[in-house]
């Protein structure tokens, strides 16, 4: 079923969300982004976020997509986002009210120097052992992950040595403070709100692409960008570019696979061999692929010329029609609810 649809992320269906015009959904998404930007200024007011969450749950229910499926799509990226945002809670912010302070850890210079010395000696012994030509060591050397970690550790040792050099004249008893690490109220708020916004916007855009065909999306975007056309910006060309890109992705993937096979059959190896050999193997993929794509583009341009490609802004739209009752209803509901939540409290 999926292979029939251009990109495999559109699920055909007949839910309310499917029946809405692409423009409506795009406008709602845009509005939510603006809405969150406004809401973010007023800290510690949870109403807008709760309202957004309710909207999200309603939309999921109305789309015929199971929440579990949505979650499966989202979880990896969410995890990364969460991990990435945590450090900002500890970001030094002199004006913020501290929530909690992890006190400074005091170490004397003498202790630091001693740690550096021990670490460097251990690393040196380790590297020397690796260079021994006995067979357990050889298998260690083959393992490329081990090689990479060793290089990292070695760099760390270099930095440590640099630190040692810079501070060797410091009196051994004086202390070097690590920290303090302060967690401010402001920081915590940023973490929470960012994460929430990310979750909501990501989920909504997933719902958008799941319930809207690529072509309807392109047409919707083109219609929404109409004002730019008055500024003589190439909106229609942009729409065509997007359409062509979507159309050719499967074809180009096939061509790339074919090229990998052809070059592998000639002995190109992308994972073994010296750096130079591997780069050459990669070049054997890149260059022909780009040439092939350029050649394809030239032929396609000729074909488009022959079909009389000329845009004057009066295209008929195949999928976007005028807004219906459900569109207006959805727009009105979203607007009321979100603005309402901003005004409350």
């Amino acid at each position, binding site marked *: 079923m999926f292979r029939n649809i251009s990109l495999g992320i559109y699920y055909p269906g007949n839910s309310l969300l499917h029946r809405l015009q692409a423009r409506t959904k795009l406008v709602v998404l845009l509005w939510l982004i603006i809405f969150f930007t406004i809401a973010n200024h007023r800290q510690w007011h949870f109403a807008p976020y709760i309202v957004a969450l309710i909207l999200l749950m309603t939309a999921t229910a109305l789309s015929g997509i199971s929440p579990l499926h949505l979650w499966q799509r989202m979880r990896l990226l969410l995890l990364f986002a969460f991990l990435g945002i945590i450090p900002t809670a500890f970001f030094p912010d002199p004006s913020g009210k501290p929530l909690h302070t992890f006190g400074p850890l005091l170490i004397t210079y003498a202790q630091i120097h001693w740690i550096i010395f021990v670490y460097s000696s251990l690393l040196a012994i380790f590297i020397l052992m690796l260079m021994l030509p006995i067979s357990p060591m050889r298998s260690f050397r083959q393992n490329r992950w081990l090689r990479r970690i060793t290089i990292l550790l070695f760099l760390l040792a270099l930095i440590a040595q640099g630190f040692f050099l810079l501070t060797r004249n410091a009196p051994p008893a004086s202390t070097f403070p690590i920290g303090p690490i302060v967690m401010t109220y402001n920081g915590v708020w940023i973490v929470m709100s960012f994460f929430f916004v990310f979750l909501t916007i990501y989920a909504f855009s997933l719902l958008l692409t799941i319930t809207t065909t690529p072509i309807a999306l392109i047409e919707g975007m083109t219609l929404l960008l109409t004002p730019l056309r008055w500024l003589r910006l190439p909106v229609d060309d942009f729409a065509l570019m997007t359409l062509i890109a979507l*159309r050719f992705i499967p*074809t180009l993937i096939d061509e790339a696979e074919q090229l990998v096979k052809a070059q592998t059959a000639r002995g190109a190896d992308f994972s073994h061999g010296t750096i130079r050999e591997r780069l050459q193997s990669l070049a054997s993929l890149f260059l022909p692929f780009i040439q092939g794509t350029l050649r394809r583009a030239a*032929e396609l341009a000729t074909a*488009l010329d022959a079909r009389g490609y000329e845009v004057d802004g009066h295209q*008929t*739209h195949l999928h976007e029609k005028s807004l219906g009752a459900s569109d207006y209803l959805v727009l009105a509901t979203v607007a009321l609810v979100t603005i309402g939540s901003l005004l409350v409290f």
Partner: protein
Amino acid sequence: MNQSPLIDIQHINYTYPARNSRTGELQPITALEDVSLQVQQGEYLVLLGHNGSGKSTLARNCNALLTPTSGRVLVAGLDTSEKANQRTIRDMVGMIFQNPDNQIIATVVEDDIAWALTMRGIPLSLIKERVSSAMEAVSIAHLRSLPPHRLSGGQRQRLAIAGVLALRPQCIIADEPTAQLDPLSRGEIVSLLHQLNQQHGITIIQVTHLLEEAALAQRIIVMEQGKLVMEGKPASIFANLEQLRQLKLAIPEPIELAARLRNVGIPLSPEALTVEAIAQEIMP
């Protein structure tokens, strides 16, 4: 001919700078030399020649994709070198190309056929009608919702033809559409072109290097080094096998067989150019 020709080519030359494949130097290549040709409405014309003979260049001069370096080309009276005429000319004379993939731009079959129509602001209901009839004419209605990469080569060529048909052209130029297809698909496409010619009166100009594809044409023009060297009905062209061989064209074995049998006195009609016709002549 009483009526004026659909395409009137008057003493055109076409030159362009290109790299000589033997020496690597840049030099002007003459692709067409003093070519004059008239294509009548409703004709089925085949441009025959080996690769590099100039047949594709000539074909592209017929729908204003290329304009001649000297001389002029008139399509229904309109000069191709005037930019203002180009859109009208390309509506009248459509073209399909050799690579089935590089002429399809939409993500779904029916949207691709409709694409050129949407460019012209034609109302949606009329578009749907034309798309339906185009799909019927080339028999791909059952593929309407599929993305193009799921179609076979022959089906993609039929899709390209449908896309051109939707514009209701007077003439379709097929630039070696079968070169990358398997033998059965080749035959299907050629039959389709004949069908469009006979049932819908569309003028067809087919560019090819295969003699067997030219067998059912009304008129064949053979090209070599940018010049027209032979012209006539298939029977008279095929009678000159030696000359065709010298023009680097492959002679299909049945035709060769029939010629050899004729040479030893066995009377076979020179009109027999297809396998079926030759079989009929040998064993009536």
